[in-house]
């Protein structure tokens, strides 16, 4: 195994190697750069070409600056909606094209402090609106396991980069499944921590009561390491929880014997039988590990999507009101306005009497893609006078019931197990013209965000067509330690996480 490529190894293996021989970090970067040159044209996991010179310099600096860093010399890619100082952060949207963040997100500060090397930005659905990464304004990402299929979304670039060994780990964001579903489609581990576990400072807001940053990695140990770096209270995020962070890594080996696994009855509509079979096998594996299974009731789970698309769009329409072409990002050319010395509308057909309003309209209409427009409109509608009670208020009440379902379930069991997605990766173009069908593919992931509970997706099978299948584990708030322990025990008992796409 002496010749095993560095790029194909896990974060924890590489961390140990670099600790023994720091030059391994330089070799690792070169391997990744070669792979990116060879594969990114096909996959489009990264939005930008790597700047080789600056990356080499980053490796040297980080090796020197962080001799005991948990991520010393480890190349990590970050979803394009997390701010990195001096780097373009566009949310894969034209409306933020050219925006260079003047500050680092808290998670970026934490990655840097532990010696990580920041790779180019990972592609995503525009503003994290989507489940396939086809909504990126800069072109879709493709699934490394089958390039005619989507990598999932919205953190599809992060997932594809890790699965294709173009990065050693990644950060994504998860508002309704945007870390877990792409992890499932790409055969890797992806975790959404408890709401409040990881600081959102510097994460471009989509739905502020649901968004959470989390790791995408090659195995569970790597997820534990990355989470231990990014988790913890941050005074700059007032929704960040002042809850102590346990040592996730050292607890991984603790036995799972006696853990109670809850199996909910799920809406079966659209559930692929291969996914169902893989999940049944995975449950048996947990039983062999000494876990007990019990049935639990999540009564309102079939209402989760409807609830989510009210709450998430309401929050999104409010959060996206800030993109008006005034303070940062894009301003429509020809709507007057960026032109030196001119305050008059230059548009051939000014459609309003008000140049400022005209600039807002032209900038937002040409800056946002179709999905942001749909969600802004939906959110504006459900919040508007006369509809608020019927939609937004109703949604918040059903959210309470969904949260209560989980509170009750976790009195009866330690973990809930269910599929991450109803099917393996679908084809590019398959759902893009049917927004409701696309929304329905989030059915199993959305409730964790509404309830705020942590959840992880881990590989648990391959379909006959050779596509990865993911299993989702959920647990009570702030018990990521339990989630990771159970995922680790399952991983050690199986070898799904060692399967590689045949690129």
């Amino acid at each position, binding site marked *: 195994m002496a010749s095993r490529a560095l790029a194909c190894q896990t974060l924890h293996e590489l961390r140990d190697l670099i600790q023994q021989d720091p030059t391994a970090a330089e070799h690792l970067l070169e391997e990744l750069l070669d792979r990116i040159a060879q594969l990114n044209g096909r996959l489009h996991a990264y939005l930008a070409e790597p700047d080789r010179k600056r990356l080499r310099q980053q490796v040297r600096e980080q090796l020197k600056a962080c001799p005991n860093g948990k991520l010393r010399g480890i190349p990590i890619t970050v979803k394009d909606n997390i701010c990195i100082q001096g780097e373009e952060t566009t949310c894969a949207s034209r409306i933020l094209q050219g*925006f260079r963040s003047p500050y680092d997100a808290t998670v970026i500060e934490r990655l840097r402090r532990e010696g990580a090397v920041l790779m180019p930005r990972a592609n995503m659905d525009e503003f994290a609106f989507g489940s396939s990464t086809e909504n990126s304004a800069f072109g879709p990402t493709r699934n490394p396991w089958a390039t005619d299929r989507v990598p999932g979304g919205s953190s599809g670039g992060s997932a594809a980069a890790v699965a294709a060994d173009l990065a050693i780990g990644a950060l994504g964001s998860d508002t309704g499944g945007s870390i877990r579903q792409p992890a499932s489609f790409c055969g890797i581990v992806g975790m959404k921590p408890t709401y409040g576990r990881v600081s959102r400072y510097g994460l471009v807001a989509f739905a502020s*009561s649901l968004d959470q940053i989390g790791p995408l990695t090659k195995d569970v140990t790597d997820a534990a390491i990355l989470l231990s770096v990014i988790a913890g209270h941050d005074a700059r995020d007032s*929704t960040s929880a002042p809850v102590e962070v346990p040592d996730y890594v050292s607890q991984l080996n603790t036995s799972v014997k006696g853990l109670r696994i809850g199996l909910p009855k799920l809406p079966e509509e659209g559930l692929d039988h291969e996914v169902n079979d893989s999940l049944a096998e995975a449950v048996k594996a947990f039983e062999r590990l000494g876990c007990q299974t019990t049935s639990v009731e999540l009564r*309102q789970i079939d209402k989760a999507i409807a609830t989510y698309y009210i709450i998430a769009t309401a929050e999104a329409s409010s959060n996206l009101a800030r993109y008006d072409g005034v303070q940062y990002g894009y301003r429509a050319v020809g709507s007057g306005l960026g032109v030196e010395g001119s305050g008059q*509308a230059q548009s051939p057909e000014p459609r309003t009497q008000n140049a*400022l309003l005209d600039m807002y309209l032209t900038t937002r209409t040409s800056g946002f893609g179709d999905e942001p*427009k749909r969600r802004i*409109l939906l959110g504006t509608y459900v919040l508007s006078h006369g509809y608020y009670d019927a939609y937004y208020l109703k949604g918040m*009440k059903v959210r309470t019931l969904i949260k209560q379902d989980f509170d009750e379930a976790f009195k009866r069991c330690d973990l809930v197990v269910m599929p991450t997605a109803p099917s393996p990766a679908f084809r590019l173009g398959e759902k893009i013209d049917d*927004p409701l069908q696309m929304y329905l593919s989030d059915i199993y992931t959305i409730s964790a965000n509404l309830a705020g509970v942590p959840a992880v997706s881990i590989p648990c099978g391959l379909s006959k067509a050779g596509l990865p299948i993911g299993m989702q584990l959920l647990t009570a708030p702030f018990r990521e330690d339990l989630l990771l322990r159970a995922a680790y025990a399952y991983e050690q008992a199986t070898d799904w996480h060692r399967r590689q796409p045949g690129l």
Partner: protein
Amino acid sequence: MAVVTPEVVKQVAMLARLRLEGKALTQLAAQLDEILQYVQQLQAVDTQRVEPTSHVLPLTNVLRKDEPTPSLSQDAVVALAPAAQPPFVKVPKVIEV
């Protein structure tokens, strides 16, 4: 029966500062209508004695110490604007004289 008509969508679009017309408007209106029809299923849930949840954590009135900390410089902020004449951000004329 349609929940939203293209006319209502156009009105909402103006509130959201989006310009919609023609085929884009009718297509979006139809998609929004389908989504809103789907969302109607929530009306069947009994929520009479249920309090709304806007936020899952039991955090209220989070305060920080009343101490000044450094913030971004004016130069750095103005430099982000698509049109500026430092130290000002430029916008189209808003006052008729």
